[in-house]
């Protein structure tokens, strides 16, 4: 049996974190096939407002679905509700950890007045290499919009941690 449009779209990986699929990252919101079976509409939610990978994700979805036989592919954006790291699936978290990227803890609430967080934040990070929770924040920002840089004080290795949003 041919794979469904969802299966094809769900197998496309993130351009910046290629160990995780768009479905497991939680940015793939819906995939709908047209009645004639020739067209497909994909709904995608960007991670960050300025995420430079959004256009690449759209292109990669377009190409994967066309290669699988669909003639018309439309990729729509959905901004509400905004993406949250809570949308990353358990298999996605496992894939991140296996690749040396520390998966996020629970996302913080966003009340009406967002409290100031001054202290070096105690993230839920664990070293993805040795498993120690003796980790320290090196930089609040990292090589991609969604990660921060930490270092393990047990094995001394630096690693990326997906920021909770």
């Amino acid at each position: 049996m041919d794979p469904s449009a969802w299966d094809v779209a769900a197998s496309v990986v993130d351009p910046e974190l290629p160990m995780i699929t768009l479905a497991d990252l939680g940015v793939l919101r819906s995939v709908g096939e047209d009645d004639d079976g020739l067209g497909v509409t994909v709904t995608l939610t960007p991670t960050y407002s300025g995420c430079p990978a959004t256009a690449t994700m759209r292109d990669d979805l377009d190409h994967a679905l066309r290669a699988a036989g669909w003639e018309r592919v439309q990729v729509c954006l959905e901004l509400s509700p905004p993406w949250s790291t809570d949308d990353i699936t358990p298999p996605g978290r496992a894939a991140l950890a296996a690749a040396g990227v520390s998966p996020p803890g629970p996302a913080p609430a966003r009340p009406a007045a967002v409290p100031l967080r001054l202290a070096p934040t105690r993230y839920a990070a664990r070293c993805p290499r040795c498993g120690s929770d003796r980790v320290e924040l090196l930089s609040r920002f990292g090589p991609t919009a969604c990660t921060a840089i930490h270092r393990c004080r047990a094995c001394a290795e630096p690693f990326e941690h997906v920021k909770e949003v």
Partner: protein
Amino acid sequence: MSRTSEPGEESVYAGLVDATGADAAHWAFGSRAEDPLAGLDTSVPDGLDAAELARECLALGDDALVLGHRVSEWCSKAPELEEDIALANVALDLLGQARRLLARAAAADPGVLPVLPEGAAVGAPVAPEDALAFFRGPERFRSSRTAALTDADFAHAVVRLFWWASVRLAVLARARSHADPVLAAIAAAGVPEVAYHRDWAAAWVLTLARGTEESRRRTLTAVDALAPAYAELLGRHPHVRAEVAEVVGELFDRAGLEVPQAQDGVPRDELPDLLAEMQSVARAHPRGSW
């Protein structure tokens, strides 16, 4: 990795584009920029004034665009590599917010779009947010003067960003329940981003204010120089004054700094100079496509 050149091939990049099979959408300005609101219902809800909604989106979008440009000037110049990356990430988030907000303004009221230079729309259509960013004169921008100020040093950068982000966070948090669902969604996505920018800047204000004699001296100088900017930001958004004052007071207490009181002066107008640089490539090559 190696690739074989074809005889007569002129551009070393030509094969790169072909190899990925990608269309040109994500390469740059003027090609086929992807619509930041693709697939969203951008009709204006009943009971909302489209022109007023567009002005509101322009004010928020222009402020993010202009400050994003200023912050991006720190690329390769920040005191540490990590902070260089931090500032670039802040600029990227702000640019993303600006694209959405400017696109939302143009969709609500196409009357905000400027007349394009001759030939600009030939070949490659100019995306609405690009038209607003690159082909409006400074008199039509609705950004704060604070956003356009040149940074004197790193202390100036973090004090300005802390104040600006504190105000913007309070404004965006309220806009999450805006009657326009598109603006509400853009605001909701921006809240965690701007909260992160504010907290990063706040941590640096604290570090510099309680650091060395020289870092404290520079922080005091920045607070003093930026006092009119703080007054301007609060004056533009009086409905968030109490909330912002609380956050600013909390940090300044811990940092041993005094919050500026009511100010008479206004910040310098540096927007024309900023736009002259930001718009120079688009204006010199209105038909540019690359």
